[in-house]
């Protein structure tokens, strides 16, 4: 058979299906954010490796150099740079706290044990514990980001 719409016939959602939680459950949204934030923080971290190296004079440097370091400061010590930091803290805190939820769940520690079920079915794995922990991760992320905002923009801390 030669198919006209061969690609379409494959019907794999691909990256989009992977990243798009629309129509699905809260945990699915958390899954997407866990991935995105993981990669985002990794990217930030790589950048951070670059900028911290300016403390020792950058890629070709040989030791602590205050002029090189203040060059970096002149790039990042502004509202835009601070905003990035606030975002990083937001994203990282969500990833970290949600990560703890995942570890506990994936080791079966906060999973209810299977037993008889009754209609209407409510999956035990998606119970209130999971839902509240996702909200805890979101709340923690917001609080941490706010705190960072206060520290950076209002000079607290």
């Amino acid at each position, binding site marked *: *058979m030669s198919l006209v719409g061969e690609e379409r016939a494959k019907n794999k959602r691909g990256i989009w299906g992977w990243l798009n939680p629309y129509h699905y459950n809260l945990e699915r949204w958390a899954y997407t954010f866990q991935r995105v934030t993981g990669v985002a923080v990794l990217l930030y971290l790589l950048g951070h490796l670059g900028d911290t190296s300016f403390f020792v004079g950058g890629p070709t440097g040989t030791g602590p150099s205050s002029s090189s370091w203040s060059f970096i400061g002149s790039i990042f010590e502004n509202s835009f740079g601070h905003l990035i930091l606030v975002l990083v803290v937001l994203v990282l805190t969500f990833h970290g706290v949600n990560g703890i939820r995942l570890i506990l769940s994936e080791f079966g520690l906060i999973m209810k044990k299977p037993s*008889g079920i*009754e*209609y*209407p079915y409510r999956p035990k794995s998606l119970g209130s514990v999971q839902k509240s922990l996702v909200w805890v991760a979101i709340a923690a992320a917001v609080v941490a980001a706010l705190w960072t905002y206060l520290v950076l923009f209002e000079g607290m801390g």
Partner: protein
Amino acid sequence: MVETSRHDILIVGSGIAGLRAAIEAARISNGKLDIAVITKVQAMRAHSVSAEGGTAAVLYPELGDSLESHMFDTVKGSDYLADQDAVERFVKEMPGEIYQLEHWGLPWSRREDGRIAQRNFGGYTYPRATYAEDKVGFFEMQTLYDTATKYGNISFYQEWFVTSILADGGEFKGVTAIERKSGNFSQILAKAGIIATGGSGRLYSFATYAYSSTPDGMAAAYRAGIPLKDMEFIQFHPSGLIPSGILITEAVRGEGGVLVNKDGERFMKKYAPNKLDLASRDVVSRAMMTEIEEGRGMKDDASGLDYLNLDLSPIGGQKIKERLSQIREIAIKFRGIDPVEAPLPVRPVCHYVMGGIDTDIDGATKLKGLWAAGEAACVSINGANRLGANSTAECLVWGKITGGEAAKYAAARPQASVPGELSALEEKRIFDGIFHGKGGTNPYEVRDALQKEMAKDAFVFRTGDGLSQALRTIRELKQKDFLHCEDKSRVYNTNLSDVLEVEGMLAVAEVVVAGALARTESRGAHFRRDYPGRDDKNWLKHTLAYAGPDGPRLDYSTVAITKYQPAERHY
């Protein structure tokens, strides 16, 4: 040239009977025979998944039950039309089958001591229905399907629609089939064949059956010259849920549920003072229709159907949730009623065909090399009325027997070959006749008209006049120009197979009605208002219908009576 593939054994149908046969053949042959299962739906989707209440077997002789008792109840339930040698073999084989499924992983419900639990069912003297909640057929299918994946020599043709049986020189040679996915037409040859295509309940629209339960397998056998036996006996189950016809299992009454009429009266007291709601199904269904006809039923406004109430409150909420979980789920989802809180509206519904492809006690048909098993076959252990929980059981036993017989036969045979014109003719019939055919009548409307007629004149109560009318209608419908296909694509063309199904339905409906018209007595599920009594002198015999140029030619055969002489039935 028609595409050809070859196997040693070909099993048509992947229900409980077909899968059990496949596993038995695979096991007996020790990996040597090449076994194929062909099914028009995906293998796991066979109608058998809908069976709910139980599978009968004698497991607890220490509690008083006995093989004799199971045998007697079955024969009595059949209104003495069952072949008693077959019933005897059946009850002996059954306990082993329950243990076999258990060993293969079936989650039978258990007693506190860890042994398999059993419950009451209609028409039985002891609690004998082995159950797994109320999803018995589903779990049996799952267990058999999963176990079948263990055998490397079982292959599946999933979603291949069998259109005809190939026979040459009085021997089975194979089948012709259409692969749904590609629309290709092939012949699949085999040394031995087993027809396990299930029942034909979709002759009625208010039916507990899956939509796929159309009589194409029976029709194919019929066209191949094999007689259909006892087709006039169609079981109407007392409790089909309004308005969908989904089954509310007899286990509900087995566990203590009761039928009540408009006045809240437990009317079964009048009709079966001893067994009450657990009398055999023909008795209960007739009682219900009588209540309805005498004005003690209720009417569902949306569907226009009359009904009675099935009250589950005597069972108790906890037990309903544990043992009848699926019933509760279905009632809530499809009717918006939680049976823990309110009664369910039910009425008699087409549920089972006692008749089928004529076979001997080994399941062999009159065509050499071809067996039939399960609901498609008529061995007959069900006679004029099947007892609940005996059908899945029959599928298991004759699945096993025919699988074994076919394996022995195939091991000693050369590979099949068949004259090419046979399938070329069939291909012409389907593609020139239907796929490219012309016509103005919507085949689905023909189907609707047939179902309406069957519900009107071939239901619980029948009359000579009504049946004659039904025969006329069916013959008119056969003349209509519905043999054409609006869907012009070869890929997954259900329109084409639907037309083929309707064609088979008309042929088999004609057999049902002709047999019923001829049988001037009332026996089991077949009740003639104009002949209300059983007539053993003239009618203690099986009906055999052969395909003829102008409809079925009827013949009769004797009933094997070994231990129990016909007696009047009381419940």
